[in-house]
């Protein structure tokens, strides 16, 4: 593929776009992993959300009821 006399500009445009998008994708993916780790850490220490506490109380009170 011959990019002609302005190949440098074309390659630079594609490289810059790929670099910015890779940073964005990487940031979102890494943040997701870190948040999941933090949540798992909280749950391991027995700290759960109020809604989860209510759910577990309901399940204890009605053990035969299938979860919705």
């Amino acid at each position, binding site marked *: 593929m011959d990019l002609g006399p302005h190949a440098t*500009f074309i390659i630079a445009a594609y490289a810059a776009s790929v670099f910015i998008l890779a940073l964005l994708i990487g940031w979102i993916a890494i943040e*997701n992993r870190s948040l999941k780790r933090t949540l798992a850490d909280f749950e391991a220490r027995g700290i759960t*959300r109020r809604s989860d506490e209510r759910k577990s109380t309901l399940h204890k009170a009605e053990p035969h009821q299938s979860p919705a």
Partner: protein
Amino acid sequence: MALIDLANPTRFLSLTGRILPWLAAATALVFAYGFWLTAGAPDDYQQGATVKIMFLHVPSAWLAMFGWVVMSIAALGTLVWRHPLADMAAKAAAPIGAAFTLICLITGSLWGRPMWGTYWVWDARLTSVFVLFLMYLGVIALWRTIDDPTRAGRAAAILTLVGAINIPIIKFSVDWWNTLHQPASVVKMSGPAIHPTILLPLLVMAIAFTLLFITLHLAAMRNEILKRRIRSMHMMQAEAAPGR
């Protein structure tokens, strides 16, 4: 699942967990097809091979504006309907929109140097897109400045709706003012003014960019829900701490 069910963050998380892998795969496939078409696209009779920059520049420009439109709809959701996911959607869209705007500015400059003889001119189209980039940074800064997400969401929603005036200014700047930037050649009343051999890769790349935006937006919204859960757990932990 009814649309109203998506107001429940837990249901939203389970839905995104199911559809994100498919969306990511579809995005990768359309990008692969788009790059293949781009590589085989003929040179333009005036621009030569630099037309290949357009396959990045035009879709990123569309997505830069689309990002602000998404944020504006989410801002209405926050202020008018008080939808529980609206401000999360707005906050998640801001960095993605900013990234696409930055790509648009960089690729535009790299196309401008060989074609116009300059990287930058302060004409209406370029300036209004640069203002859009600054507005994205402003909204991101506002989100980070106010600690309480609900208050930050309302403030950001007002700023977003005020900034929405810039979207028609960007779109019609080439018609309203005498600019160096060319007028619309794809979305116009008389139909596209581009040869099909160049229009097809452009549209495929636009679909790929749009799919990427949707994928990243859903993933970022998922992160925002998790952040708020962690925040509420931190607060519960502080409340339960001895001495309170």
